[in-house]
């Protein structure tokens, strides 16, 4: 009787596998990469559109000055320097270092505020209007897309910082912290070509 009701079979026991995994071993990482691929595609196509419009124009920028260099360059420097504290808290997140991640996230929040403040000044010095020329439209669209990413990442950082001061601290939070850092790298890395396109292309292409 008991023979019929039971049977032995091979099993693959997974109980020793980790459930706090980072980078390519975590689903969050893959989801974030997917987002980056999509948004990177959008950035690339808008940049392509910018140069396509340039190829159809006689003078570039058409009848206006290129954006003033100062604030764009200041923001680029802030973006580049932000990589240092970000990389620090990203590495500490992998070790589960609560104090370091808290401090890193607070720093990241303030850096985001600085970026946004300087970004406002950048917008005041673009020297073009989106409704006057296609050039102006392309400049503002590129800028607008990047601001959207900057703002999204900033809100995300604030929410994560709050979570790190709540009772919700667990392994998954540290994975989130690492992904927050990766997404920030995406914001920084997409800014570099956009900076060159917005600020330097009109200078290099000026006839």
């Amino acid at each position, binding site marked *: 009787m008991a023979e019929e009701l039971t049977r032995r079979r*091979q*099993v693959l026991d*997974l109980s020793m596998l980790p459930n706090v995994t980072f980078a390519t071993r*975590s689903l969050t990482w893959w989801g974030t990469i*997917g987002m980056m691929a*999509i948004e990177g*595609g959008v950035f690339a*196509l808008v940049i392509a*559109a910018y140069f396509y419009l340039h190829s159809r124009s006689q003078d570039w920028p058409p009848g206006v000055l290129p954006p003033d260099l100062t604030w764009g360059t200041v923001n680029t420097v802030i973006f580049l320097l932000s990589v240092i504290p970000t990389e620090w808290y990203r590495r500490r997140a992998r070790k589960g270092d609560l104090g370091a991640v808290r401090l890193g996230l607070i720093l990241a929040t303030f850096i985001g505020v600085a970026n946004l403040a300087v970004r406002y000044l950048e917008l005041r010095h673009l020297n073009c209007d989106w409704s006057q020329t296609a050039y102006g439209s392309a400049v503002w669209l590129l800028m607008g897309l990047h601001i959207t990413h900057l703002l999204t990442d900033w809100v995300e950082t604030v929410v994560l910082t709050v979570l790190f001061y709540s009772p919700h601290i*667990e392994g998954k939070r540290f994975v989130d912290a690492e992904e927050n850092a990766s997404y920030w790298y995406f914001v920084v890395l997409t800014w570099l070509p956009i900076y060159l396109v917005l600020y330097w292309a009109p200078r290099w292409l000026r006839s």
Partner: protein
Amino acid sequence: MSEQRAVLNDQTFSIVDEAERARHLERIWAEPKGFIGWFKAVHHTTIGKRYMVTAFVFFLAAGLLAGVMRLQLAFPEAHIIGPDLYNQIFTMHGTVMMFLFAVPMMFEALSVYFVPLMVGTRNIAFPRLNAFSYYLFLFGGLMLFAFFFVNSGPDRGWFAYVPLSGPDYGPGKRADIWAQLITFTEVSALAVAVEVIVTVFKLRAPGMSLNRIPIFVWGQVVVSFMVIFAMPGVVVASTMLLLDRTAATQFYNPAVGGDVLLYQHLFWWFGHPEVYIIFLPGTAIVSTIVATFSRRHVFGYMALVLSLIATGFIAFGLWVHHMFATGIPQMSEAFFTAASMMIAIPAGTQIFCWLTTVVTGKPVLKTPMWWVLGFFFVFTIGGMTGIFVASVPVDLQVHDTYFVVAHFHYVLIGGAVFPLFGAFAYWFPKITGRMLSERIGMWSFWLFTIGFNITFFPMHILGLRGMPRRVYTYPADAGWTVLNQIQSAGYLFLFAGVSLFLWNVWQSLRHGEISSPNPWQAGGLEWATDSPPRPYNFLNLPTVNGGEALWDALPDQPVLTGLHEDVREIVTTRIHDAEPDGRDEMPEPTIWPFITAVVTTALFIGSIFRPIAVSIGAVPLAIALIGWFWPTREESERRKRRDIWQKS
């Protein structure tokens, strides 16, 4: 490192314990009940079924719109409907078929339902995002039809070229509504693309290495990548269009440095891959059905997978062949003609692999297989006219005539709808637990196939005789009357074929023969579980030993143990060899994705009227997203107690 590995063992299973575990898993994975519960559902089979039903309803609606057009065109100089309504109807027909039926059905519905089952896991990656994507798709479609019913349906054709759709020539809100419909559907397709890639890369059953992934799953992965790289094209094109119309930007205004061809480049960067996004799932279905009904592994697995990937790549080098009539340089024309003809290589490779599979197997002719044979016939004709229109002189001659309409209905209906009906016949027992009637299935197959050819074949001739597409009527002495009447008669056959299919579904749902877990003796993992699958998909999660998991299983093929079964835990595996790599927890049902979709919908529709709606809507959107991601205290604490950090 070593102690963090999966370990092979022996274990005794008793029937009593198994039944107890099944009841327990049912409780953990069940969808919430009741009216509010409906909006909280997150399981991929629930959402997949909703995608299928919704997309099919849009298919029927767009089909009925086609019927109105066929009625109008059945008589020369008819005034059953006027030109303005006709413009809305042909635009609605194309837009709904492409954006609300073909992509959501071939890609989203089928991959959401089947990919997690076929790779042997318990839910799709990011299930809440999946629910969100469905609601956005649904709301986008409802918005489009709501505006259509108040005489504000888009009327500039399914690709809404500027300047016709721009601020100067497209008054009213019709073109804006089109542009925002695109936003709805692209967000949902992009979300599903990421879910499918992550599910296939990280959630495959142990042992399902790259060379054992079912071809259907390969097809959907390639399509996911195409969605990710193509959709941004239409995102940018339609956003610029909307901005030009509502925020006074000048992207497409040639007077101040804008360019109308920029729109066409961006649109077709998306639009051509779009065609393969629709038809690659079709070929992946064909590979699956052909193997099952030939009773052998598919011939040339590697060639088929490489063909799918090659098609995915080449698809991005063809877009300008839609623009041969725009006066682009001759060098580009030559390049894009060559690239377009190159697509015949992977397409031909697949066809020869299927034929070899059939010839060397023991074919069984059931309805799914008949739909595949119909696909061979119809799609091959469409492919041949494809070679015609890829050639610049022929294209210039037939551009914007019914020849082109005939061509793309042969490739799209042949390449997608025929395999889709085959897929319905094949997987209906899995989804519903009942068999479809073979007899009624054969009737609807023959009615549809004959009706299709009567409706669309004469369009080739009409096009060669010069009848332009998108005209609401034609003069009696143009010599087009009889062919148009034959086509309209063909529509009646198509209508009857689809109606019989619906009747078959309705009857079979209530009285159909009860299906076993594997009624076709197929080899895929989706057949290893109950029909319909329980909400936990598999009682014992499987491991895999070959390309057709069930046919190739060892007598004592191991199953997985050691997952926490009091939460929705799943195993993650490595991309290349599918070795167990970690464990992760799937989220619980929640209403937040629905709320987020409602807020997003308000934002999108608001932006049609006032650009500031985007900024205002961003605030409730952020709140909804925070609610979505905020963990409960109980789950955080439970997880913290059980955390095992990865070593290294």
